[in-house]
């Protein structure tokens, strides 16, 4: 299911920027924050919290941390505090972030092996 956005783009919009969110193209206008671009693109949740509940940007001013997304591979980034740039790769986060080099299944201890 896709949920329509309830936000309109700004009338005094700047240059068109192209990014991807979970691989799908989304656009923003120069001067938009990532949170604004995501809200304009979809009314759907932009992440699921560590407790599994759906969230999206709320305060738009860096306070509530509900807008966390992965930006160019960096997890837990506050989307409302980052300006959109052409070519950014965004991803919704599901649950807690991962670690880059640590496998999620730790190596088995085997003293004889």
């Amino acid at each position, binding site marked *: 299911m896709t949920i329509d956005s309830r936000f309109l783009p700004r009338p005094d919009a700047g240059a068109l920027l192209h990014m991807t969110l979970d691989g799908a193209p989304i656009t923003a206008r120069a001067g938009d924050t990532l949170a604004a671009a995501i809200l304009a693109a979809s009314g759907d949740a932009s992440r699921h919290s560590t407790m599994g509940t759906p969230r999206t940007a709320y305060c738009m001013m860096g306070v509530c941390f509900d807008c966390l997304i992965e930006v160019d591979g*960096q997890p837990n980034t506050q989307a409302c505090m980052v300006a959109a740039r052409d070519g950014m790769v965004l991803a919704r986060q599901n649950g*807690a972030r991962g670690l880059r080099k640590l496998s999620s299944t*730790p190596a088995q201890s085997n003293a004889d092996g």
Partner: protein
Amino acid sequence: MVLRSSEITIIGGGIVGLSTALGLLQAGLRVTVLNGADGDFRASQGNFGLIWLQGKGADFAPYAAWTREAVARWPEFARALQELSGVDLALQQSGGFEFFTDPDEFTAFAQSLAQQQAHLGPRFSHEMIDGDTLRRLHPEIGPEVVGASFCPLDGHVNPLRLLTALQRAFVTLGGEIRTGAQVVEIAQAQGGGFDLRLKDGTHLGAPRAVLCAGLGSSTLAAQLGFATRVSPQRGELLITEKLGPRLGFLSSTIRQVDEGGLQIGGTKANVGPDDRETLSEINALARHAVTVLPALADVRVVRAWGALRVMTPDGYPVYARSPQHPGAYLVTCHSGVTLASLHASLLADWIEDSAAAPDLEAFDDHRFALSAAA
């Protein structure tokens, strides 16, 4: 409602006071806990949550044995406490590492553990693991780690939930906790027992009194004729954002709390009554964590804090009866999380002087009497 007057009053409602209080309550006594001001230094609200044996008492066999007993009693203690309080303590005792980047420190620690092994015999076991072997078991460990010790008996718990659980269990069983009850003076009352003067000017009577006031203990200890003077030692700690993957190990400096964040600690500084965190120490902790686990390099720290350890002059616990004032006891220690399982059980037998009382002579306060007099 008529309050039944208590038979024994615990001064201090941190982990040590509440564990002791819970044990006495379960031994059938009516117990009141007086807890001081919210602004007091409270180690129980800022600690690392380890239930730790390796290294403890290498130079003092009674402490090695006492800690070993505490670790052995934790599973049953946690089970009962969880049932009474409804609080999940997140206890895990599946072994722990201590990581080394300095070969000399690694060698010195190996000697300490050999000494501890000699004190405890078959009740202890440990391994010294060189860096390459360690990385074969845990490839995520960084190349600068030269070795690690491992003790299968080490573990950890969620320390804030331990404090909450102790409070709830104590109250559920009918214990009384008074908050904002700062004792400023304690004196023998005419006709027996003690007269406690609180900061707000009120007086309370107590047939017997156990002093467990952490860093607030020293003045009252002096009034009761004890020689022990505790002093603060600051430890700084970090906590990171929550991580999805589980770390495959526990260590004395990096542990993953059950909610997912990593707690990184603990520095040591003797800086008096100052629990502020410092950028330089936070930096050093973060560097250490990334050295041990290079994958942490881009993980954010979300909180850092300092807390003051309650240190006796030799670092070992004090369990003492006042010779001048029968019915007054002093109970204070570092590692009050680890020792909680004993404070809530055997210590009540010792205070009650029952048949099951452990021999705690080695932890008496007279060991400081000479230095205090000098």
